[in-house]
Every structure is written in C-alpha cells, then in structure tokens.
C-alpha cells in the first residue's frame, strides 16, 4: 500500500534506492476490443529520473499524451506497471490516485488550467487547500518570485493574459513540492515569447528548486529546454536524446517521420 503522506524530495531524501521519480514498466494501453482494438501504448518501459527535465515527443497518435496520462494516474494502463517513486500507482484505487495527484503530482495543461472563480493565488494554493493545509509562506514567496507573478496573483484568470495564466498553473504545480510535474503541451496555446518564458520557468524549477518535470510537446523549441527527450511512435519508444537542441530534435523528428 502506498504512503499518501507527501514527502519533500528536496529537504527529506527519499529512503528509496531508486533515482527514478516516475517509471513505466512494459505498459500497454488498448482502446476497444478485437479487430477494432487500438494499441495506444504497445509495451513502453521508461524511467524519468529525479531532478530531470524530460520531454516526450512524437507524431500525432504516437501515444505520447496517453503515456503522460498513465504516468500521472489520470488513466489506467491495460497491462504493465506504473510507479511514482516507489509507489505503484497502477495498483491504486480511485481514492488513492486522487490523493497521490493532490500531494505528489503537479499538473500543467495546455489550456483551462485554472478554476475561473478563484484568484491566481487561490488557484496556486488549491491542491494544498484541498488537503486542508496552507502553503509555506517562504516557499510560496520563492515560487511567486520565480514565476514573476507577485503583483498579479490577486486577479482572477479572466483578468490575466494567457502567459500569466500558464505561469499561475506552473506555480500551482510547484506549490506542493510534488515528486513530478506533468506538463501536457504547456505552451501549445501561447505566443512564442510567452511560451519561452514558461519553458524558462520550468527549467529554472528543475535547476534551482530541484523539481522533476515530464513534458509532452510537439514543438522542438520546447523540447530543446529539456535535459532529455524521449521519442514515441506507434505506442513504442523509438529513440532518445540527451542534451537536445532545436536542430538535433528536428533532425530526429524528421527521421521518425520517414
């Protein structure tokens, strides 16, 4: 049974020996049955290391979003195992998954990241509020400084620009010091300048705050911010690239397309 009490990956070293923050072991995901079955994931095994900024890339329909959803406990695998740290989330029930998401995972989605009725600050502290806790003021301060939002957090989402909204989302993902932040096309709806800002913050979060981020993207520029890129095609991991640049990513993608 998993422990649902949140750990602090920075100040309290994990007792576990593994350094993988998130791990998929021989994961398959099949939609439908028989002849019409679609193998979104066809046996994926991958580790995402602690303190690393990883990107998952692949053409449309390659299964990259499905992999992210399975890793984040939003979707169930058809077979195989998914671990968050040492906890096997593929064996958890709905309630346990919810608490894991609340306490150990941060999310940044492409759009509609924020609850429209809550202010920026309330959105940021939402996961903690749901757990009945209040944010550590020092940590909050540090996050707000990092994402450069201190003067806008009193506003509601509809009074914030798209870029500001995504920064609030990043801050929310950071607030509970999760084991992993999963980002699904976080810059997909932004202009390139705001997008670059967000990607910069996410990289800073990894470098300066010791976070772990797994990001799905189809944008080589976004992927170039990551420490490592995993390439998916037809539900399988087909390639991997460490220390990516825009050019090297584009090069690999082009080869995948062949």
């Amino acid at each position, binding site marked *: 049974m998993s422990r649902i009490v949140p750990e602090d990956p920075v100040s309290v070293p994990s007792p576990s020996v593994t350094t993988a923050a998130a791990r998929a072991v021989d994961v398959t995901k099949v939609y439908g049955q028989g002849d019409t079955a679609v193998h979104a994931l066809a046996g994926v095994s991958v580790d995402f290391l602690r303190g690393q900024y990883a990107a998952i890339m692949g053409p449309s329909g390659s299964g990259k979003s499905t992999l992210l*959803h399975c890793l984040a406990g*939003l*979707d169930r695998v058809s077979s195989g195992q998914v671990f968050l740290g040492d906890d096997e989330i593929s064996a958890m029930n*709905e*309630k346990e998954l*919810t*608490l894991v*998401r*609340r*306490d150990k995972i941060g*999310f940044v*989605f492409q759009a*509609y*990241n*924020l*609850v*429209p*009725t*809550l202010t920026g600050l*309330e959105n940021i502290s*939402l*996961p903690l*509020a*749901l*757990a*009945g806790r*209040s944010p550590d003021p020092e940590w909050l301060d540090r996050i707000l400084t990092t994402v450069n939002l201190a003067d806008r957090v009193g506003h509601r989402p509809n009074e914030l620009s798209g870029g500001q909204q995504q920064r609030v989302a990043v801050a*929310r993902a950071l607030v509970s010091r999760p084991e992993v932040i999963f980002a699904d096309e976080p810059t997909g709806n932004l202009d390139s300048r705001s997008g670059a800002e967000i990607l910069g913050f996410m990289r800073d979060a990894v470098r300066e705050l010791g976070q772990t981020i797994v990001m799905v993207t189809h944008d080589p520029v976004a992927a170039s911010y990551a420490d490592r890129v995993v390439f998916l095609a037809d539900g399988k991991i087909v390639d991997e690239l460490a220390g990516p640049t825009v050019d090297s990513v584009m090069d690999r993608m082009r080869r995948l397309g062949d």
Partner: protein
Amino acid sequence: MWRVTLRGLVAKKFRLALSSLSIALGVAFMAGTFVLTDTLGGVFDGLFTNTTQGVDAVVRSKLPYEPTGGQVSRDQLRPPVPESLVDVVRDVDGVARAEGSLLGYALVIGSDGEALQGQAPTFGLPWYPRSDTVNQSSEIVKGRAPRAPDEVAFDIRTFEDGGFRVGGPARVSFQTVPPREFRVVGAFLFGGSKDGPVGATLSAFTPATAQEVMNRVGQWDLIEVRAADGVSQTELRDDLRAALRADGLAADFESITGQQLADEQADELKSNLSIFNTFLLVFALVALFVGAFVIYNTFSITVAQRIREIGLLRALGATGRQVNRAVVGESLVVGVLSSVIGIVLGIALVPLLQGLLAGFGIDLPGGPLVIATRTLVVSFLVGTVVTVVSSLAPARRAARVPPITALRDQALDPAANRRRYLWGAALWVVGAVILLAGLFGGASGGDSALLIGGGAFFAFIGVAMLSPLLAGPAARVLTWPARRRGRVTARLASENAERNPRRTASTASALMIGLTLVSMVAVLAASLKGSFTETIRGQSSADFVLSPKGFFPFSPAAAEQIREELPDATVVEYRIGVIQVGNDTVNVLGASPDFTEITDIGLRPGARRDAFARGGLYVEAPEAEARGLKVGDTVEVRFPDGPGRVTVQGIYAKELPPPFDPPFVLSLADWDRFPTAEDVSVSVLKGPGTTTREARRVVERAAAEVGGIDADDLASFIDRQIAQFDQLLNLVYVLLMLAVVIALVGIVNTLALSVYERTREIGLLRAVGMTRRQLRRMVRGEALIVSAFGALLGLVIGVVFGFLIVQSVSSEGITFALPVVQLVVFVVLAVLAGLVAGIPPARRAGRLDVLQAITSE
C-alpha cells in the same frame, strides 16, 4: 430549424425529463382537481335524481328571502306548509297522489351508546306504508317498513354502522322532544346508493311519528306529488301553480317539478363544490407558477450553454427570428409533452387526492371518474402556455446573440442587467400597490382575493428579478462559517453560486414562492389562533361549552336537560339564523337572554337586559351607528315566517367571540319565528351551589344522552377548536408541499445543468487532487446555498405578507403573532430538502471520468 430543435431535445433527455416533470406536476394537480370535482358533481347529479325518484312535482312554501350563504341553507330558512294543504293539492286535476314530506334532525345512537355522527347531517323522514308512495327513492332491503309509532327503519349503512338488528332497540335523539327508544324493524337503501345522500344518516318513522318528533305537528316541509297517467312534470307543475293562484295561496306557496327539485339540490351542493374546486385550483396554479420558474431557468441555462452554437448558426445565416423560433419550438415540445404526461398523471392520481382529503377528514363519495373535455382542454392549454411563455425571455435572449459569439467568449451585458433590475423594481412596486389595494382598498371578497393574488404574482416576479442582487452576498454570508474553517469546498460552492447570480436567484425564487406561502399561512394561522384563544379567554367566563361533533348543529334538548339538573347554573344556547333588516339580508346570532352573564360583549350602559328576556335585539355599535339605531328603537324586520318588529334593547361595543360574527344578537324569546331550532353552541356557567365535578358530570351526561356533542371545559374547548383548525391548516401545508417539491426539482435541474456546463473545470479540480467526496460536498454546498437563500427570502416575504393581511383584518380583533419555532422548522426542512436535491447532481459530478472531463470541449 425544426430539425435542429428536435435534435437538441433528444440529445438532452435528462434535462427534458426534469423540466417536463416540473410542469407535469402542476398540470397533474390541475387535471386531478377537475376530475375529482367533476366526478363529485356527477355523483351529486345522480344522487338527487335518485332521491327524487317518483316525485313529479312538489308544493312548498316560498323562500321568504335568499339566505346570505354559508351558515344557513335555503332549507333551513324555508317555512313549513300546513298539513291541510295536502288535501288541497290532492284535489288538483292531474294529481295522482300527494304526500307530505319532511327531513328533520334525528340523531341515531348506535348500539354501543355512541352517536352515529360524522360530518354528514343526520336526518329523520316519514315512511308511507303503501308501496305506491310518491317518493320511490327508497326500498326496504331488510325487515319491513315502520308501521307503529315506536318503530324505526334505518338506511342500510346506518343500520350496519350502528350494529343494529331487526327487532332490536335503538335510541334516537331529536330537537324538540327528548331522546326516544324505538324498535328497529328494517333497513332500506336510499337513492340507490349505500352512501345515501353524501353519507347522511337516515331514520324513517311513520308519518305521524315523524311530524311529532321533528317539530312538524300539523305541518310538512313540502308536499310531494305524483302526476296522473299522461300528465307530464311541467303540466303537473303548471296545474298546481294555477290551483294555488285560484285559491289565493300563490303568495305563500309555489310548485316546481321533481326535476327542478333535483337540480336545485344538486346545485346547492355543487356551489360548495365549486368553492372546493377553486380552493384546490389555487394550489395547482401556485404549483404551475413555480414550474414556470423551473422552465425559465432551464431554458436560460441551455441558451447560455449553447451560445457558441447559436452564434455559429447565426454566422451561417440563421436569422434572430429563426433562433427565437427554435427555442420557442423546443419549449412548445416540452409544454405539450409535459401537459400530456400531467393530464394522464392527474387522472391516475385522483384516488390519491381523494385519499389525501379523506386523511384530513374530508370524506368524499366515490363514483365513476368524470373526465370532461374541459379538463383536457384547459389543463393542456394551461400547461403548454405556461411553458411557452416561460421560455419567451430566454428565446429573445438567444435571438439577440450576435454571430461573432461563435468566435469569442461571450461577455455579460451590464446594461441589460441594469434594465432588468429596473423592470424588477417596477414590477415589484406595481405588485405591492395592487396587493395593498386588495388588502386595504375595501374591495369585496372575490375582487380583493383577485387583487391580492395578482399583486402577489407581480411582486413575486419583481422579487425574482431583483434577487440576483442578493445572491452573491447571500452565498458569502451562508458559507461564511465553513469558509472560516478553511473549507475550500465551501469557498468553491459559494463562488459557483455567485458566478451566475441570476441562475442562483431564479432557482432559489422557485423555492421562495413555496416558502413565502407556507410562512404566510403559518403567520396567519398563529395570529388567528392566538386571537381566538385570547378573545374566548377574555370574553367568555363559561365553565363548559357544548359544540357539535360534526359541522351540523345539535338538539336544544341538551341545554334543556342541563337546565333541569343544574337549576342554579346559567345555560346559554346559541343559534344562527337569517333575517332581513330593511332590504339587507343579515345573519343573526340567536342567544339565550342571559348570555351576557357568560359572554362579555361590552354592552353599553342603558341596555335593557330585562326587556331582552322578552325579545329584541342587541346591535353592534358600528352597525347601530350606520343604521342610526339607539336603544328603544323599533326595527322592521322580516323573519322566515313573515314580517315582524323587534326592539333594540342594547348596543354592544366588542366583537362577538369567534366563531360568531353577525352584528345582531336576537333574543331566543323571538326564535319561534324560525323554522328550525338547532343549537350551534351551548355555554354553561355553574352556580355557586354546585361543584365543578358535579357540573361536569351533568354536562357530560347531557351531551352523551343527546349525542353528537362534545362537552368541554373552556380550555379543552379552545384546544379542540384549534385542533380542528390545525387539521385544515395541515391540509393547506400538504397542498403547498407540491410547490416546494417542484422547486426542488428545479434545484436538481439547475445543478445538473451547471455540473454539465462545468465538466472541464470539475475535471481540473479532480486532476489537481479534489476527492470525489470533496466534489460532492461542493455541489451539495451549492444546493444548500440556493435552498437556504430561497427559503430565507420566502420566510421574510411570507412574514411581511402575513403581517399585512393581519393588519387588513385587524378590525376583526385579530392581532399579529409570529410562530418563531414553526418558521425556523420550515426553513430548516426546506434547506435539508435542498441538500437532498443536491445529492443526485453531486453524485453525477462525482462519477465524471477525470480524463474525459479535462479533455472535454
């Protein structure tokens, strides 16, 4: 556009079902009411056709004047005819037979000693020994007809209910003669139905005995006539009229056909039925009004949800008119569907309605269901029209959606909101003015009820339009305790309620209407009860009070017996009659001359109590002033048996204690001018030489021996009266429940739609760690806010309405009372019900798949 409309409807079956339900319930109530009263009307028609079977015409005294309605019936007012008239009638051409008939007070004491007194009257009648008697309404089904003075036959139901047997004894109580023992010789079926005339208890005696025991010695109520062969009813009647004219009797007597008599009797009952019908229809209309709010809400929300789709249709070239028609078309489908469902449901629920009324002591005779075309047409039209009208405003809003909305998120139009509030305020003011005019304008009964109802209608809509202004603050205040404890679900619930104050407010408004009416009724009831208790306590010094067990007055024999056994006690009888003063027909209270020794009516100095003992009137001060009467004046009046003069013996300043309200009190010394002498109440003040225990024993024995009477001391009399009142009150509450239930359906509907609308947001909340339980709590929290808001708003308005109504009748001695505990209970129950209404949408929200929810459009 029709295809788009229908697709839209089919795609949202759940919404369709819920919003249809809200109208269908109201329509069902309406249709059920119609069917119920039509069925009763049918029963009455059949009944009186049966009870006048064989009677081709009757001869009777003319009604001296029309009674004022309510407390005194025509039959009680009509003088008897002399027995000698039977011979006159018999000699008229075309008459085959003529027999005197009467229907008088005869209370049967069952074999267990208990009087067979329900809410129906108890009648005695003569039984002619011949088989070719004029009135063929009854046939012996057991034993034989009474032939001797000490023999009696009962209708079969009374025979069975009383546990009688042929040859056994029976005791019957009368008005003018002491209770008497009879020998039961048979049982008969009356009017072809076991229920007899609406459940009345019937005892048949030989004609001479009937006259003797029912105060008709030498007299009959009327003469029943059979036509000779080949003479029609109308010919017979015309012959009888001609004969009466020829004999110079036409000024006092009249003749009508048997059919006319049956119609008259059925109409008299049916006029009560129409009051009953109106009473129930008012609740049906309230339910429909609440249903209209639910429909309005549903359409407003769905238009808002489909605003992009509508924008797209507009961008593709649909005109505003077409969009409008599509929405109205949708409501037409919903209206037609719910009306049809409602009518079917209503007919199916008639037995339930009957059962409900029976549960509150209103026993109605059953019969084959009468489903009139009117029922179908009116229910269908009302249901459909209400639905369509409720959708007009949302449809107009939809038509105004500009094409550009397809491409961008829509922003609220604050100017429209301001205009709406102005309209709301205007409607509210207009409603309030009409309402106040109805209450204090001095309009007559029906008109003022219409003004009050209409005013309340507009005021309700006005309040509903203004209430969005209050929704936000109310949500914050209501969730304040939970938010203070750091409950994020409370914060979210509050924000959800606030984000669309119009939706919250109109959902709450539906509940508000029900709660307004409930609290208003509670305030009125408390005020009436309080004032009733206070007046009785303040004005009456009676030790004991006798009152009828049913609705019908009882024999004066009880008072007589108490007088005999307690010679030093003051025993006061009260009766109700109708006389004419000048050209006005007025109710008078008949009272024993010494009644002022028990009841304080604020008799002014100069009153002639001694003279009142020999006859005369006491007049209420305002009435005396209006007519310019002073003590000693003689008033020309008309009694049932002809003109008379009475002297004003005193002027009194206080209202008569309830339930009496006539402005005239007539000394019982003058009561011989009335055809019946039944007491509606008797008060007893024991003398100094008797202990309370002795007095109680005498009073209770007299009540038991005469039968059908409750004997109480003053305190328990008040309790009993209040308990009776409470029974009616509870019926009103139960009927108002329907409006509350429909409002709850509205809450379920609105929340379900809101949950649907916020699917993505709910997905997000779940993704970042909101548990199902927290999510459910959030949705229920919103339900709680809506219901508490509606309930509190209704409470405040209801109390204000109640206060105003009490003020408008303050001259009747009714003072305002606030039933705090009861009102708190109502609000708490409404809020709890609202919480329950929140459960289904909360579960629905909880069951949403997280991934599907966040990736939904």
